[in-house]
């Protein structure tokens, strides 16, 4: 392709300065809800979004389920839901934010409906279905008895939120990448007074001054695997979610925890297939019957190993079981699943590969719920799966979609290569330490969604965003006008524009792949002190000797280069945290050859890391540091 002149006006070195009350970094689900919530408190709000807020972020393209939500149709309480989440994760779960989410999730969902989001079966497409409540027209997933997980029309959500933000006068800076947090007196660890941003189409540098800032930038990805040939697959979430927020807050001196957690799954390995686009019985496809190559059904069992005799039993708790978790593996909350010895039985020849999802055999309502509602409303499904597959001739009434989790049948449990680990690609991941105001360890900096430590889920991002928005607004109403130092801004400008000054050098892709190779070789599983120290050495080498050669020749590539520099920072954070945990842990997928004791009680705690005077400062917090859930929520929520 011949060289094309950059189609947008170039504005390198041109800067602008704006002031606001509440600055929201990241216009995803958490960011939008935070903006709406803050705006309703009467303060000035700005959203800074790298993509286009109307459809950006992991939840931009859609949402199939709104989980863990106490509501009038269910007996399950917020306390019970948090207990389930904590137990399912070995207590390495953000109980604080999960409790906030459980308390406010239903109200948040109703608010979304008022804004224009579709949350009920208003067209009566599923009249008479087992998972539908006829009166409210709510549809439920996974546990039809306890009704705590809603099935929703999530493709309608993001555009609805965007419209509401605009209606409330939120100023949105799309195509603007946040690059650093501004701290008072340019001191690491002092109050956050705003952020800097880069317009990724024009290259303009923008200074945002704010009384309160909310980090809604999700978590880190692309630390262990990067491939541009396996595109769309070597990260589960949008590839441009790289932990910019983590890196920025780290540099500013904020504390993080659980950065040592990684996992090895087929999500983000690069060798799976388009998300939700292959036959499987997991979540979006639950409880689809799976068959082998000869059409033989693979049995389902409940948590006690009892073979289920009909499909209805897959969506009900077992005898004596309180309720079904969305994906818990612990006995108390485990959903029915395919026989756990499937792998052995395949190897013995009892079931013949490949396996298929047998949609044609499903009862009509279940079939249409899976193919058409869940696959359809979940992100990355309406066009990539539903439309593309239908045009290719796939018919859910006649066709068996092949499964690619060959030996375990279930994507969540299929383990990838130990070196192809995931960090923030799926499930709970490391993030910012926060208090009951969802405030980080830095004054003026709040966090919501997956930027929070040990967090996950759309409903959680929405609800914590809504909470953090009002807490940040409350603070902004009494905070002083922020002052920023010229030197801090100029230093950041230098850093941001450096790659543009070079005529050639190393491409951002090679830089990312090199970082991943260091992580694969020195911070994979199992670990030891020597390997990780060497890994740290080589990451420092990349930082000191290779980043200075990184070059970009337009604003878009500059964005990609800056992303990779933050991937490097997040990878360093992972090694810091990994070195600090001197015990192994099942729940953190963390095995150390030199510290083989598995989850000893004295190590059942949060390891915290932060930068102090440029050096990594290690700390710890008790596993339940948030204290009494109800008491603290009542004291801090700011609701009557």
């Amino acid at each position, binding site marked *: 392709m011949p060289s094309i*002149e950059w*189609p947008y006006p170039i504005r390198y070195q041109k800067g602008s300065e704006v002031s606001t009350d509440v600055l929201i970094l990241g216009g995803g689900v958490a960011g939008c809800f935070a903006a709406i919530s803050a705006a309703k408190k009467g303060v000035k709000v700005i959203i800074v979004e790298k*993509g286009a807020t109307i459809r950006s972020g992991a939840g931009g393209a859609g949402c199939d389920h709104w989980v863990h939500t106490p509501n009038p149709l269910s007996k399950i309480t917020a306390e019970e839901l948090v207990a389930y989440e904590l137990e399912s994760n070995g207590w390495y779960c953000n109980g604080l934010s999960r409790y906030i989410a459980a308390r406010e999730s239903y109200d948040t969902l109703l608010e979304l409906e008022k804004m224009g989001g579709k949350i009920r079966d208003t067209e009566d497409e599923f009249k008479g279905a087992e998972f539908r409540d006829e009166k409210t027209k709510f549809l439920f997933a996974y546990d039809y008895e306890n009704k705590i997980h809603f099935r929703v029309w999530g493709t309608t959500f993001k555009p609805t939120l965007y419209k509401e933000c605009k209606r409330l006068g939120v100023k949105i800076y799309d195509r603007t990448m946040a690059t650093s947090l501004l701290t008072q007196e340019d001191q690491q660890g002092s109050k956050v007074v705003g952020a800097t941003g880069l317009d990724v189409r024009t290259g303009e540098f923008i200074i945002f001054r704010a009384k309160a800032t909310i980090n809604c930038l999700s978590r880190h990805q692309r630390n262990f695997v990067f491939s541009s040939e396996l*595109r769309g697959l070597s990260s589960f979430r949008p590839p441009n979610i790289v932990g910019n927020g983590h890196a920025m807050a780290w540099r500013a001196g904020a504390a993080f925890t659980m950065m040592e957690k990684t996992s090895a799954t087929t999500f983000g390995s690069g060798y799976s297939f388009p998300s939700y686009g292959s036959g499987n019985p997991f979540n979006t496809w639950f409880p689809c019957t799976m068959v082998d190559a000869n059409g033989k059904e693979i049995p389902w069992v409940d948590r006690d190993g009892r073979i289920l005799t009909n499909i209805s039993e897959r969506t009900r708790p077992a005898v004596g079981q309180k309720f079904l978790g969305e994906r818990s593996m612990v006995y108390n909350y485990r959903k029915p699943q395919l026989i756990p010895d499937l792998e052995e039985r395949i190897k013995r020849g009892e079931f013949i590969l490949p396996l298929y999802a047998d949609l044609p055999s499903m009862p009509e309502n279940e079939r249409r719920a899976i193919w058409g509602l869940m696959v359809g409303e979940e992100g990355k499904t309406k*066009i990539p799966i539903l439309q593309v*597959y239908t045009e290719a001739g796939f018919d859910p009434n006649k066709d068996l979609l092949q499964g690619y989790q060959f030996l375990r049948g279930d994507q969540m449990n299929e383990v990838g290569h130990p070196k192809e680990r995931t960090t923030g690609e799926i499930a709970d991941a490391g993030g910012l330490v926060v208090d009951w105001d969802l405030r980080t360890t830095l004054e003026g900096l709040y966090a919501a969604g997956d930027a929070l430590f040990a967090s996950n889920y759309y409903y959680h991002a929405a609800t914590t965003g809504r909470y953090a928005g009002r807490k940040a607004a409350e603070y902004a109403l009494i905070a002083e006008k922020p002052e920023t130092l010229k030197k801090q801004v100029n230093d950041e400008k230098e850093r941001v524009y450096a790659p543009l000054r070079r005529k050639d050098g190393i491409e951002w892709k090679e830089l990312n792949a090199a970082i991943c190779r260091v992580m694969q070789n020195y911070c994979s599983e199992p670990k030891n002190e020597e390997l990780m120290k060497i890994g740290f050495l080589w990451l420092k080498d990349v930082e000191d000797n290779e980043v200075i050669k990184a070059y970009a020749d337009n604003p*878009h590539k500059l964005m990609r280069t800056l992303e990779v520099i933050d991937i490097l920072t997040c990878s360093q954070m992972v090694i810091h945290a990994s070195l600090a945990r001197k015990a192994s842990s099942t729940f953190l997928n963390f095995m150390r050859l030199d510290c083989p004791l598995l989850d000893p009680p004295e190590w059942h705690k949060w390891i915290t890391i932060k930068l102090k005077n440029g050096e990594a400062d290690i700390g710890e917090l008790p596993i339940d540091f948030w204290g009494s859930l109800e008491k603290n929520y009542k004291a801090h929520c700011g609701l009557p």
Partner: protein
Amino acid sequence: MAKEKAYATPNVVIPNRPVIFDSNICNGCNRCVAICLMDVLIPNLKKGKPPIIMYPDECWYDGCCVLECPRSGAIKMNHPLMQRVRFKRKDTGEHFRV
């Protein structure tokens, strides 16, 4: 007989056709360019022509561009050949692929 020619061309980055435009339907409104999460598209210099897929290797395959397009058929998603899932007709056993 005219002398045959060849040109030194670099290898193409793949996958390079995450979406395919139909220039007979697309009118270059650029709504897909405005919405792309990864910013892989740039507007064509010629007004009314389909956008250029500048960074096809960055596409996340979310399909928001197709969802946003007001003209049916103007833009279609195209999974990389190595990411096409297989399916089997239940009654005949015939094999198909996306």
